């Protein structure tokens, strides 16, 4: 190691204090933008990223090989970063969305939102929360998720809220890599062995009922997402599934039974020590 920086131990000491990911960023809500609507939108996108990140993190040390293990962990990290900014943005726009904690609590708003809300207060799509399956399952899940998220973030780059626009512009660069990763693996598994294809088709069939929720009632967004998915299906020689969408939506807090145990694991330490300093 170069002596130039080997002598300074502070080079290797990771920061201990939690920093505000929006430190110094102007979070004034621009005129004409409804603060409550902006916060609600940031919560949806932030919760999607947070819950998906948690599921991807569960893959750590379980992927078929080291490279894919690192890939999944990297994507989880990107999404966690997006979640932190979006939850912080939601809290700054409308402090009313942040759960009340005891007076003097050291918990920052982003953590209060992540660790101190119950399942029905989360606004993520159910695709993000369903339990993990095999490798084909995470490939299909990431494909459906990142195709829709990329299309959404692309639009939000021109959001009237400059903070959301900046988070979206940065997210677009990251999700482009996620979508390519999932698309390539989808193609590889489809054209691999009989077994890899069987597993891929089974995963697609199982996850398809959660797909429509990603675009909601936005026809233009749905068409855009469909065009990309159809491209992947065509190249892979896989039929577009015909299963009907699952009724209800996680956007209203109607979640599957999978979210509770996920949150229990994610939140247990923070809730056990609500006055803890980390």
């Amino acid at each position, binding site marked *: 190691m*170069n002596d130039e*920086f080997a002598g300074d131990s*502070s*080079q*290797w*000491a*990771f*920061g201990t*204090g939690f*920093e505000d*990911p*929006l*430190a*110094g*960023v102007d979070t004034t809500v621009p005129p004409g933008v409804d603060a409550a609507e902006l916060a609600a939108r940031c919560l949806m996108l932030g919760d999607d990223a947070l819950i998906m990140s948690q599921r991807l993190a569960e893959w750590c040390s379980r992927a078929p090989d080291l*490279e*894919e293990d*690192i*890939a999944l*962990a*990297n*994507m989880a*990290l*990107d*999404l*966690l*970063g*997006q979640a*932190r*900014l979006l939850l912080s943005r939601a809290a700054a726009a409308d402090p009313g969305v942040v759960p009340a904690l005891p007076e003097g609590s050291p918990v920052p708003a982003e953590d209060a939102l992540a660790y101190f809300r119950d399942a029905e207060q989360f606004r993520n799509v159910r695709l993000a929360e369903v339990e993990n399956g095999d490798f084909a399952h995470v490939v299909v899940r990431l494909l459906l998720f990142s195709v829709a998220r*990329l299309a959404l973030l*692309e639009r939000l780059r021109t959001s009237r809220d*400059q*903070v959301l*626009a*900046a*988070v979206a*512009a*940065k*997210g*677009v*660069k*990251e999700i*482009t*890599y996620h*979508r*390519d*990763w999932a*698309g*390539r693996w989808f*193609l590889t598994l489809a054209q691999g062995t009989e077994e890899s294809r069987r597993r891929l088709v089974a995963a697609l069939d199982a996850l398809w009922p959660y797909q429509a929720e990603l675009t909601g009632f936005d026809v233009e967004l749905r068409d*855009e997402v469909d065009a*990309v998915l159809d*491209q*992947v299906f065509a*190249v892979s020689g896989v039929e577009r599934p015909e299963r009907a969408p699952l009724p209800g939506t996680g956007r209203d807090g109607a979640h599957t039974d999978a979210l509770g145990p996920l949150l229990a694991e994610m939140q247990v330490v923070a809730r056990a020590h609500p006055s803890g300093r980390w």
Partner: protein
Amino acid sequence: MSARERAAEVAAQVRDPEMPMLTLADLGVLRGVEVHSDEEVGEEVVVSITPTYTGCPAVATMRDDLVHRLRAAGFARVEVRIVLDPPWSSDWISERGRAALREAGLSAPGPAPRRSGPIPLTLGPARSAPPCPRCGSAATRLTSEFGATACKALYRCTGCLEPFEHVKEI
């Protein structure tokens, strides 16, 4: 030398915690250094940095290192601000930074993609593979688009058979 120039010089020397061959200035994450003078409380240095990737865990360390170095240089009050817009691009890595990457056996990024209109899905082999930073061979293959840090991809040289890291174009 003015206080601002002195502060800027100190900040520019702080190194990236994950790629210590690069200074924050060479990596392009250091976006500005200002010094505000106030008669009552004295000088305050305000440093602006931008994360390479949204989830980059090194940001907290960069902030701590900047505060630490500037305090050691005599600036008692230091504030580090995050800048999100415009998003960081690998094009901001300086020529000196690129040379330092190559020196350390890493492959420097090519030009970042400039897009207009919808982002094309890339199902085939990724972008053109970079040459091997060790032997210079063009015969290299992508191992993974994701590496030990968010900003790097893994390649293998089929000439000298060595694996190497490539700083991704974003």
